């Protein structure tokens, strides 16, 4: 079952803050404009009328902060901004990357290497030396196993941690190519359906999914502030790699793929340069589905000839 209430709750939360800020700005603007017009009616020059209105209103940012405090969101906005700025600083300069890496190494030395050296230092070895032969041999093996395990875990965990950290920084700082601040992405899962990303769904299941998507679209579209709703298998910028064969090219290529529905390109205001966009009829197809490729695909892959009409096969 799709947890629609959870989706709607996230949607409302997303819009609540933006709506509150927008409302505040519009109310303040209206007030100052009305006061300016009142001043103009008394014979003031436009500049003076505007200035007096602004003075009478007081510090706009101060009043905004008062209202944000009243809503209890100041700490949240500040934390979000701090994180964003931190990630941007990291991405902007290689020097920041190096200093971050140096700090990470320093942290690893402090919390890992130094305690390990201390634990296996001369005092402990002397203490172990006083033990009887059997116990000494036993503790020696235990320490060896512990240290080897610790080093193995550190070696195994470090590369994925570095890669994950790098991916997080890239995700937080890259320009997605669309107004990401205006998009709310929600992951939807259906209980009881055994469908993996790589598996082609049966026609019955695909039809069932389309019905639920239509219901969900109608509910979401009726929410105030929602411009449009679309469905994709991943958020733009997080596409998975896939290997495909291109008809006539005699080779396979690893590319990033993205399953979307018919409204996707319209919602992101993407114009199709050649061929056609998706139609709702395309969504019902379980095989021979149409594909749209980007300019890089057409330009960089040496497939030869016309791109439109070419067939590709996912491996």
């Amino acid at each position, binding site marked *: 079952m799709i947890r629609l209430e959870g989706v709607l709750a996230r949607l409302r939360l997303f819009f609540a803050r933006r709506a509150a800020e927008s409302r505040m700005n519009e109310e303040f603007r*209206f*007030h100052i404009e009305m006061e300016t017009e009142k001043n103009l009616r008394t014979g003031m020059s436009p500049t003076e009328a505007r200035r007096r209105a602004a003075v009478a209103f007081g510090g706009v940012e101060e009043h905004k902060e008062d209202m944000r405090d009243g*809503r209890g969101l100041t700490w949240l906005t500040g934390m979000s901004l701090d994180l964003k700025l931190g990630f941007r600083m990291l991405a902007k300069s290689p020097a920041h990357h190096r200093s971050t890496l140096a700090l990470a190494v320093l942290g690893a030395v402090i919390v890992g290497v130094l305690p390990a050296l201390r634990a296996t230092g001369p005092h402990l070895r002397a203490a172990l030396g006083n033990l009887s032969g059997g116990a000494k041999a036993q503790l020696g093996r235990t320490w060896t196993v512990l240290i080897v395990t610790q080093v193995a875990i550190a070696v195994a965990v470090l590369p994925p941690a570095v890669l994950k950290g790098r991916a997080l920084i890239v995700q937080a700082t890259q320009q997605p190519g669309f107004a990401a601040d205006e998009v709310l992405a929600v992951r939807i899962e259906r209980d009881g359906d055994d469908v993996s990303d790589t598996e082609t769904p049966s026609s019955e299941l695909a039809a069932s999914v389309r019905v639920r998507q239509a219901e969900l679209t109608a509910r979401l579209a009726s929410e105030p502030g929602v411009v449009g709703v679309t469905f994709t298998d991943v958020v733009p910028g997080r596409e998975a790699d896939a290997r495909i064969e291109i008809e006539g090219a005699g080779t396979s290529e690893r590319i990033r793929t993205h399953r979307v529905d018919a409204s996707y390109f319209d919602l992101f205001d993407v114009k199709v340069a050649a061929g056609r966009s998706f139609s709702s009829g395309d969504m019902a197809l379980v095989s021979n589905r149409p594909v749209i490729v980007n300019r890089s695909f057409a330009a960089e892959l040496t497939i030869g000839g016309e791109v439109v009409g070419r067939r590709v096969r996912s491996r």
Partner: protein
Amino acid sequence: MAPRSPTDALRGSLDLLVLKTLSLAPTHGWGISQHVQRISDGVLEVNQGSLYPALQRLEKQGLITSAWGTTDHNRRARYYRLTGTGRRALGHELELWRRFAAGLEAVLRTS
């Protein structure tokens, strides 16, 4: 003691003035500030920017509600309206204020 301005005396009574103004008719923030200024012959002047945090607080308390509307000059504005709870709160606040004013007046009349 430094003389207090009428605006200082107004401090703390803003909620009462807002509720009273909205009990007459729904209006926007600027309308509230103009009403208070006009009825008091300019003696009471609402600190314009401070009005909005007060409106937000009253709305959060459920004493007033708001919705977008259109002014006579076809401008979009946020209109505030007194709720049933707000009307009862206004009655209570008025009673408190009148008792306070009567007490103050009684003290000031003594010679």
